[in-house]
């Protein structure tokens, strides 16, 4: 048996499959098909949580995703723990572990409930009015207290063990909601052959039909019709049914985010499966069939466990075979609660009375209730309730025609059902930016004009009776198919036997006669917002509904006001004496219901977070024990430590080997672009500061590229391979930027130029062989290239073969030594590297990483774009005016260089720095001042851009940008550090072989 409150039969749960689970450590049983809420109710458990602010005992209010109260934490361990799940949505499975939240030490006895005592002081926004003295106390004392009190569930403390996936999908028609409207739409649309997706957030499709016992559709009982419709749809290959899938967000151009929950409901999930999947659906047409949500009534003490929505109680009885209580009292403003009362009575729940807010309720349902012997009381309101952890009685009073309440009568019950009518679920429609229109008769906002390609059908657009809902769905479905370009959709009609429950309802606070400042009638259950709070906000001048929301926090809880927003609107409207539509609405935002972070991250985690780019030589470097650094998406070898070496020792050794013998460096990550066409040189002239016309084929030149605003964007060595062909190199991180900018100018400014670009970054592996012995190492490996000084001078390029594979061999040096950069097709990179390494062995060839590369180039005063420059540096600042083609009339960025501030003499300019104490190595980023004794704030003259220990020079060296620096060369300045100033001398930014004799070797 699964609890005393289980009906003897009926419902859609599988009574043959008993399921065991625990809640707050106590074990319970339920049936397959139960939600945690239905299973707890079957066991007589109503108290499941505590409210946010006052820690009031709270029970289960709804049967769906709109549940504000019954929030639980679920998970056997922290790696699988999820806080704030709605018990009404959690499907139970064997071994499920759930716990209540926001209570200590226990749910029944919660110390936090002392807040109740302070409740009079904890009015809306109380924290804005106090805790200001003493100044420091807010952050130190008050805030931590408030933070601890707030916050509902606890975050898991272990990394999530599950995986999540993301997938894009396209369909002709996406139908959201598989109630009668959605199913009818799906049947119609899919008959046309259109590709249709149908998603519903619930485990079972059918929506309100799943709780329907008497209606007959096309001669079938609702349940049978639903089963048949679903079977029909499932059999159609153009239909995809997606249960447990919430459409949570609508983004521009009919792009919707759907969250599918895959494993949370199973005890032993297939480990291959993701926990949840994000569907990113682009739909030609969307049909919204999202139904309507029942509204609570707002009356004094309406928040006790045992107070529930009438339709939810009906769902528990009809769909789950659960009696939510023994004796129910019903408080309603509409007919549907009568239907609920009758169904509950049939399930064995005693109905104490129906209190109807309406003056003279009548008609079919009222008659039926009366005929069933139910005590129906017209013009009657609830004026209060009692019961600490569960409701035990209700006070009723007659409502006079003047709106006053009469004497009250107390009726014992363990269940109070309420219904204020239904609010259409227009969330997604509104997210799509469609305009909502207020319908006075329905007291509801309905979808008006569309912005996107969508239509709403059924209860979500205010249509409520099953026959009209079905026909509306069918019409909407065929309309959508037609709009998506599919003729022949069947918009047939349905023959339905059912009885209308009308569209009555109520918004706002029901009359109760209580003292306005003493009674508490909850509007937003989860955030503990009472009618009093809303009125206070208005009294304090918060007139806009947006202000009321933010001041009181109504509608800001995890249910986003699904049950509360209309009542808040009603109350504001009444208090301000302005019509509801003039009060306005707060904005509907994604997600429709809270959505796991994991699905947004999807597969982008760990090494797949970003592409991890590796060169063909990467694995070799790994085998050699290299330490890597991240440079944009690339992994680059930073240095190659030998046993016992730290970075400094390794770099010193690598530098020394390269200066004295030969080093080998993987420069593959450099960006490369092939510029081809008869106007190639012209394009180069326009894009780079340099002049290119005269560069002969077979020669290299260092090029500088600016942004149009005049600041250095990139640099690199460029080879002219032929009159109409250049081989550009760029910085590692800059390659995509440079290519994009050049392509932009070619396509949009100079389409007349005959020139084309091709990225060749990944075509070539680049092996830099640098050092006095470089030529010796390479000579035996190359065919048909004369490496001699005379035949192949510094800054030249030759094509030929190395180790039998084609190469573009650059004679170039970023180290200041004799050097070559061997470009070979990337697939041969590793092999050629190893061959060169083997050939270099006798000469002591030493692999070096980016750190050594940086030191060697700094000794030569070569800049690194991004280190010496930072997006505010002109070529002249960086000492590169020599690279500007003086005779050129124009190039990208030239005009900007003529602006007043760009030519000022006190701009920061590149200089060298030598510390007076040669052993002191400056910190990169350290600031430079004239007088370290000046008071703070100091006048800063510049900063250290690069700083290293130079083994070659046996002293420290640094590069810096200093205000008017070139004119200050020879001066001494100071670098004030926390433990004292460091005196530095400004020198030319070149420390080693200033004449360049070594590169020319």
């Amino acid at each position, binding site marked *: 048996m699964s609890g005393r409150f289980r009906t003897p039969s009926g419902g859609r749960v599988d009574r043959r499959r008993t399921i065991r689970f625990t809640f707050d450590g106590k074990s319970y049983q339920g049936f397959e098909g139960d939600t945690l809420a239905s299973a707890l109710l079957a066991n007589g458990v109503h108290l499941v949580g505590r409210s946010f602010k006052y820690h009031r005992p709270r029970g289960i209010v709804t049967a769906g995703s709109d549940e504000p109260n019954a929030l639980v934490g679920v998970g056997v361990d922290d790696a699988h723990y999820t806080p704030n799940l709605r018990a009404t949505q959690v499907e139970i499975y064997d071994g499920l572990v759930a716990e209540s939240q926001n209570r200590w030490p226990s749910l029944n006895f919660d110390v936090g409930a002392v807040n109740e005592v302070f409740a009079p002081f904890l009015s809306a926004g109380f924290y804005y009015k106090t805790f200001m003295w003493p100044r420091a106390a807010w952050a130190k004392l008050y805030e931590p207290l408030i933070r601890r009190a707030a*916050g509902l569930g606890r975050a898991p403390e272990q990394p999530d063990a599950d995986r999540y996936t993301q997938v894009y999908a396209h369909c002709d028609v996406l139908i959201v909601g598989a109630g009668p409207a959605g199913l009818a739409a799906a049947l119609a649309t899919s008959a046309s052959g259109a590709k249709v997706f149908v998603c519903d957030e619930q485990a079972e499709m059918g929506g309100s039909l799943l709780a329907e016992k008497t209606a007959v559709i096309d001669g079938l009982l609702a349940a049978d019709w639903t089963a048949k419709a679903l079977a029909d749809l499932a059999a159609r290959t153009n239909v995809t049914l997606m249960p447990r899938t919430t459409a949570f967000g609508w983004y521009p151009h009919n792009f919707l985010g759907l969250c599918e929950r895959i494993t949370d409901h199973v005890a032993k999930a297939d480990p291959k499966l993701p926990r949840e999947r994000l569907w990113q659906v682009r739909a030609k047409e969307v049909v919204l069939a999202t139904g309507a949500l029942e509204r609570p009534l707002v009356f004094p003490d309406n928040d006790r466990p045992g107070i529930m929505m009438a339709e939810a109680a009906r769902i528990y009885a009809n769909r789950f075979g659960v009696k939510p209580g023994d004796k129910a009292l019903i408080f309603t403003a509409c007919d549907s609660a009568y239907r609920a009362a009758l169904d509950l009575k049939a399930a064995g729940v005693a109905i104490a009375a129906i209190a109807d807010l309406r003056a003279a309720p009548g008609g079919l349902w009222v008659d039926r209730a009366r005929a069933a012997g139910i005590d129906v009381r017209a013009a009657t309101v609830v004026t209060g309730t009692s019961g600490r952890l569960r409701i035990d009685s209700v006070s009723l009073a007659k409502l006079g025609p003047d709106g006053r309440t009469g004497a009250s009568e107390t009726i014992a019950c363990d269940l109070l059902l309420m219904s204020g009518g239904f609010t259409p679920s227009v969330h997604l429609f509104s997210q799509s*930016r469609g305009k909502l229109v207020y319908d006075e008769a329905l007291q509801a906002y309905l979808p008006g004009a569309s912005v996107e390609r969508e239509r709403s059908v059924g209860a979500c657009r205010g249509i409520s009776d099953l026959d009209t809902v079905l026909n509306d769905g069918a019409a909407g479905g065929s309309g959508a198919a037609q709009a998506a370009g599919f003729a022949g959709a069947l918009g047939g009609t349905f023959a339905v036997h059912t009885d209308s429950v009308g569209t009555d309802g109520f918004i706002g606070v029901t009359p109760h006669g209580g003292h306005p400042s003493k009674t508490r009638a909850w509007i937003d259950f989860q955030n503990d917002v009472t009618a009093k709070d809303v009125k206070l906000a208005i009294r304090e001048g918060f007139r806009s509904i947006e202000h009321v929301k933010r001041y009181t926090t109504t509608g800001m809880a995890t249910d986003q006001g699904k049950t509360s927003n209309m009542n808040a609107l009603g109350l504001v409207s009444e208090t301000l004496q302005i019509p509801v539509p003039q009060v306005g609405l707060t904005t509907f935002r994604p997600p429709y219901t809270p959505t796991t972070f994991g699905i947004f991250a999807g597969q982008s985690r760990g090494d797949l977070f970003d592409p991890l780019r590796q060169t063909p030589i990467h694995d070799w470097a790994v085998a050699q024990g290299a330490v890597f650094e991240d440079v944009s998406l690339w992994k680059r070898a930073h240095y190659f430590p030998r046993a016992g070496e730290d970075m400094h020792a390794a770099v010193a050794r690598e530098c020394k080997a390269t200066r004295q013998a030969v080093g080998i460096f993987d420069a593959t990550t450099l960006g490369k672009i092939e510029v081809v066409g008869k106007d190639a040189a012209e394009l180069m002239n326009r894009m780079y500061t340099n002049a290119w016309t005269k560069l002969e084929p077979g020669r290299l030149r260092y090029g500088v590229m600016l942004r149009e605003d005049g600041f250095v964007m990139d640099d690199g060595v460029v080879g002219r391979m032929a009159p109409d062909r250049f081989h550009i190199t760029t910085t590692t991180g800059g390659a995509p930027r440079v290519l994009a900018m050049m392509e932009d100018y070619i396509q949009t400014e100079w389409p007349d130029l005959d020139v084309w670009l091709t990225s060749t970054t990944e075509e070539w592996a680049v092996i830099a062989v640098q050092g006095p012995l470089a030529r010796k190492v390479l000579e035996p490996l190359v065919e048909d290239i004369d490496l001699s000084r005379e035949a192949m001078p510094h800054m030249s390029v030759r094509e030929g073969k190395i180790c039998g594979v084609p190469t573009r061999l650059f004679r170039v040096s970023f180290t200041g030594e004799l050097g070559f950069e061997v470009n070979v097709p990337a697939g041969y990179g590793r092999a050629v590297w190893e061959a060169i390494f083997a050939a270099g062995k006798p000469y002591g060839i030493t692999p070096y990483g980016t750190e050594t590369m940086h030191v060697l180039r700094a000794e030569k005063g070569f800049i690194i774009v991004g280190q010496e420059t930072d997006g505010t540096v002109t070529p002249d600042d960086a000492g590169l005016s020599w690279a500007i083609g003086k005779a050129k009339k124009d190039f990208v960025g030239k005009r900007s260089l003529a602006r007043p501030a760009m030519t000022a003499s006190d701009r920061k300019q590149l200089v060298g720095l030598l510390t007076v104490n040669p052993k002191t190595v400056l910190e990169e980023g350290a600031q430079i001042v004239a007088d370290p004794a000046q008071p703070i704030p100091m006048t800063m003259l510049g900063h250290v851009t690069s700083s290293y220990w130079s083994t070659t020079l046996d002293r420290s060296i640094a590069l810096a940008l200093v205000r008017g620096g070139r004119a200050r060369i020879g001066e001494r300045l100071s670098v004030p550090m926390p433990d004292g100033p460091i005196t530095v001398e400004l020198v030319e930014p070149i420390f080693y072989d200033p004449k360049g004799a070594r590169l020319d070797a």
Partner: protein
Amino acid sequence: MQNYSAFSLFKQALGGHAGWQKQWRSPEPKAEYDVIIVGAGGHGLATAHYLAKEHGITNVAVVEKGWLGGGNTGRNTTIIRSNYLFDESAALYEHALKLWEGLSQDLNYNVMYSPRGVLMLAHNIHDVQSFKRHVHANRLNGIDNEWLSAEECKEFCPPLNIGAMRYPILGGALQRRGGTARHDAVAWGYARAADARGVDIIENCEVTGIRRGVNGAVEGVETSRGFIRAKKVGVSAAGHTSVIMDMAGVRLPLESYPLQALVSEPVKPAFPCVVMSNTIHAYISQSDKGEMVIGAGTDAYTSYSQRGALHIASHTLDAICELVPMFRRLRMLRNWGGIVDVTPDRSPIIAKTPVPGLYVNCGWGTGGFKATPGSGNVFAWTIARDEPHKINAPFTIERFRDGILIDEAAAAAVAH
């Protein structure tokens, strides 16, 4: 102005809170004001407050097309810090930070300024160099900012994953005085204080035109509630600045982009400080109510639609889940957008315009909440005296013509 204190709260509680006064009035616009501020965001309201408080100009209207505080002030991730690189920006943001420190008391409104520390993470050597440059420059400017090793980052913010990830954390720059404040309270506190000094805050009043006299000078603003006369008009309309300046025939170097933020469901305290990572695009802190407040990036394109694309939010959450893998199971509660106005150098403009009597405060992009008190303060000065305060003197419109840019982002690739 009614005094707010624990005592007054206590007293009012006994009286059923019946005695609380309106925090601000909802006056009808007068025919004429000395100064009109366009836009009742934090900046506009602060400007009005300081005009009244520090310059004695109380015949001021703040006109707002919607509800006050409903612009970016009400939709930002509330990160406050002042550890900017350049002297100009450092001075401006530090001026603001000093005001933040006493703001609750100044306004008699608890804005919940919470200096819990802002930690900016470095994921590569370039980040390290750039952050250290900030640390040193800040130190010499008298602004607190310190370098933490990866282990120290972890100690300061235990939930952080500093190890196995695509871009491991190499360290971070921590400004301990940085933190957050309650966005709404800032708008409301300024509104209440300004109102108490006589400023008219006129909501639901959209500026639709700027009237200029024959000499070109400003005469007032056309609004959805009629013409309102004033010789001085200060525009503080954030994302909508271009639209309003267009009314006066002034084109500014601005583009408006959607910027998104999102919150998780509330949980018990689980994240002690503010963490920013520009390299992988993640900004996170936990609010006093318990939500994780997370900032995403801007969309690629300009827009006034006040929402953003799903892939932008996804990209932020993948970063958050890498930084704090136990948050992968938290759930997004709400995701919204704002419209931020961005200048070419990502620094603001607080200046006089070519139109006499027209002043503008704009271009705060993704990072102007932190500046609210300082910006309002110097903008008020600029309007009152018809000349910039020395702190905002560099933040002119002309700097773009002359090339005197204040490009924090270019200097460091650091967003706000």
